[in-house]
């Protein structure tokens, strides 16, 4: 063994899996194709890439684990100089949960709903260290405290469903730290959180890493987030290393085109439309609640949207933004208020709307996957509204389908494919074409880019902007992502706890003076610069000291 070895050395790692396509023979694919890196003790390496880049697969390989049918086919993973890939099952079990720990993306799913949090937090340490329950419980409470959890003494007595998502993610970090490991693999630990929660969890994780001196692999698709935490970054694409360097170098002077594209993502410019016309959509004093719950989800919400403009409704989970979309489409009847379209009131419930009302108002959803029937071809999916609204058949219908495919930048050969044969971005394009097929005046876009990788999402946003110019369609854009809002909106409504807290043209809403919530929201969006997190936290400390 060399002297001064790194904690983790990955040498020419190759990982594969067998795929079973619907109408082809099963075949092997390579997920990771010869990746090598060193991670010294106490350092943090960020693994960056889009979905399918192999970053999670590499992270799990450092626990000698392959998710699903994934197989490690070659290379070495040396932990403290030992190749764990050649260890026996028992030795591997001895590494997991003691030397290397894992923090998953969705803590809500990764905690067992049947057991108390404390039992789960100390479980791995009890299994491997032989320390007593009392000692470990004490250690866990100390970790809860240092991670900024409320009631550190008693929060461990609760069940996973009794704490919030941001708290669960911190408890999961405590669970990893409780074994006092050499290495922690963080797999997108803040991706599922709201931005204002993300910043706290991010700060807690970073402090914990600093205090304990544990080494970490930090996996994320969000370059701006990793930049706040990692010493080094490795950009991956299709299982290959694109670029590996210090965080400073990657963010400030990326050497590769792909890295540059990632750094410059969301640089779409959209001049704010300022012309004033008669509004297309008027939402007047809507109050709504779900059946069986007295608490209103929307309270006195009023917004307007002009033809061919984009209104972004922005807020965090539970703010009522999706409920507003449901009220406008007629899926949920409001208890008070009205929705007017082209100056005439729309029926509150779906059954009372005419076919033309339905045609004028189309919807695109977050999960393109489940918004399409997997047993129908693209032709059937796009063709259905053509027949339903315009009675098109035969040649006319085919011609229109091809026009629509062209407008979403897909070739005519896509008409006969099934959804399963399309990529995530292509599926969302087909959903856009389906909405366009009805020639609507308004399309409601419900988080249409949040399930997509940043570069793909950019493509979808550009497409939507082009289509708006050509077809003069208005968008009501429901999103939690401020970057998306900046890119596409003409006017913005910020929602918080069922109310519109700020509403107006983009230039006004995004310029100071801010109300408290909008300020918190805007300042929580990670920026693509090293040291951003430090600045924000320092600013917030100063403000709270000043008050």
């Amino acid at each position, binding site marked *: 063994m060399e002297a001064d070895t790194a904690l983790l050395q990955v040498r020419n790692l190759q990982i594969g899996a067998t795929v079973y396509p619907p109408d082809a023979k099963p075949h092997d694919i390579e997920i990771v194709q010869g990746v090598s890196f060193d991670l010294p003790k106490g350092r943090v390496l960020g693994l960056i890439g889009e979905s399918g880049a192999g970053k999670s697969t590499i992270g*799990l390989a450092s*626990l000698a*684990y392959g*998710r699903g049918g994934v197989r490690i086919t070659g290379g070495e993973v040396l932990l403290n100089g030992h190749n764990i890939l050649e260890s026996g099952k028992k030795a*591997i*079990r*001895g*590494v*997991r*949960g*003691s030397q290397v*720990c*894992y923090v*998953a993306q*969705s803590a809500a*799913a*990764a*905690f*067992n*709903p*049947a*057991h108390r949090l404390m039992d789960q937090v100390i*479980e*791995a340490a009890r*299994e*491997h260290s032989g320390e007593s329950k009392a000692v470990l419980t004490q250690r866990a409470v100390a970790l809860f405290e240092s991670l900024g959890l409320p009631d550190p003494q008693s929060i461990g007595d*609760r*069940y996973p*469903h*009794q704490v919030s998502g941001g708290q669960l993610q911190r408890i999961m970090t405590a669970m990893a730290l409780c074994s006092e490991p050499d290495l922690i693999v963080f797999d997108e630990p803040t991706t599922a959180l709201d931005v204002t929660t993300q910043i706290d969890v991010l700060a807690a994780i970073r402090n914990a890493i600093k205090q304990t001196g544990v080494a970490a692999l930090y996996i994320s698709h969000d370059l701006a987030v990793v930049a706040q935490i990692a010493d080094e970054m490795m950009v991956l694409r299709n299982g290959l290393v694109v670029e590996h360097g210090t965080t400073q170098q990657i963010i400030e002077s990326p050497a590769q085109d792909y890295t540059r594209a990632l750094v410059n993502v969301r640089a779409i410019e959209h001049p704010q439309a300022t012309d004033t016309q008669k509004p297309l959509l008027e939402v007047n004093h809507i109050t709504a609640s779900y059946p069986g719950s007295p608490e209103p989800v929307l309270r006195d919400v009023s917004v307007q949207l002009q033809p061919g403009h984009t209104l972004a409704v922005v807020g965090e989970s539970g703010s009522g933004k999706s409920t507003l979309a449901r009220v406008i489409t007629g899926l949920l009847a409001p208890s008070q208020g009205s929705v007017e379209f082209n100056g005439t009131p729309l029926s509150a419930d779906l059954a009372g709307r005419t076919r033309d009302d339905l045609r004028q108002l189309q919807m695109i959803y977050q999960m393109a996957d489940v918004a399409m029937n997997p047993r129908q071809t693209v032709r059937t999916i796009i063709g259905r509204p053509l027949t339903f609204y315009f009675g098109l058949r035969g040649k006319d219908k085919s011609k229109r389908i091809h026009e629509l495919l062209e407008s979403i930048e897909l070739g005519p050969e896509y008409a006969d494919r099934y959804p399963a044969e399309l990529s995530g971005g292509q599926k969302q394009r087909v959903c856009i074409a389906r909405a366009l097929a009805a020639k609507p005046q308004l399309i409601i876009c419900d988080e249409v880019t949040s399930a997509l990788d940043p570069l793909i999402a950019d493509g979808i946003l550009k497409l939507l902007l082009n289509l708006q110019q050509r077809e003069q369609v208005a968008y009501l854009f429901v999103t939690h992502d401020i970057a998306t809002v900046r890119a596409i909106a003409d006017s913005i409504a910020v929602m918080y706890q069922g109310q519109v807290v700020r509403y107006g043209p983009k230039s006004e809403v995004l310029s100071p003076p801010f109300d408290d919530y909008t300020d918190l929201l805007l300042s929580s969006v990670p920026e693509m610069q090293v040291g951003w997190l430090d600045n924000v936290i320092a600013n917030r400390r100063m403000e709270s000291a000043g008050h």
Partner: protein
Amino acid sequence: MPQLLKLIAQRIALGVLLLLAVSVLIFMGTEILPGDVAQSILGQSATPEALANLRRDLGLNEPAVKRYFSWLWGLLHGDLGTALTNGADIASSIGSRLFNTMFLASVAALVSVPLALVLGMLAVRYRNRWPDKLISGSTLAFISLPEFFIGYLLIYFVAVKLGWFPSVATVYDSMSFTERLSAVALPATTLTLVVLAHMMRMTRAAILNVMQSAYIETAELKGLSALKIIFRHAFPNAIAPIVNVVMLNLAYLIVGVVVVEVIFVYPGMGQYLVDHVSKRDVPVVQACGLVFAAFYIFLNMAADIISIISNPRLRHPK
């Protein structure tokens, strides 16, 4: 907690309501059978006068609704009536029979339920390998054979050839516990083999379903052993579906043992019911039907309540 109690109270109220509905159905069912007890007691050659007299003595001329309520009133006071054929008090006749049936069912349940759970977990531990296939294959083979066939096989090999246990499961009051146990060994084994497969396969399927969850991956990445993962992390989340199937099978052990009781000449409820059906002894049939229905409803209700309690979201609300 109040939500949990409310749900449980709802289940119990529903159970009581269901039992009442079943009592109406049983009464109506025996009402619309052709012929009546007087006819069957006196036989084909009875004179119309004798029939009329007997009907008046037995109270068969009263309107059905009135007879139902007086029957129900009696039931609520623990009076199941008297058997028409021999005038014996039904409650005391059923008492010892029911005890025998419950004894047999309990022995079979105490063996089969833990065995099914353990085999199910082992099948998951070694899924798609030979122990899994052996467990699935053999339990499936036993459920595919008719129970009377298994019964006779056991009698032939274990009782006749090996002579370990008696072939006839005669029990009487003065028997000691171990003598009783030895007497019911073969019928209990038969029942165990009959109900094992269903419970074991449900355990396997329910746990395999849970094994897809993200928290199982968390447990694997903590370096826990496979059996610990199955027992500690998967099983507690699979309780609800398993309990439902277990209770259905427990109900079968009490309600569906007629064939096994006949084969082993075991003096339980099944035999008692069959005897009196053939004699058209309506009060006995009604009483037995109601006892069986009560067990069925009670066990399913218990399954529901255990499923509710096993859900931590209901047990510990926010």
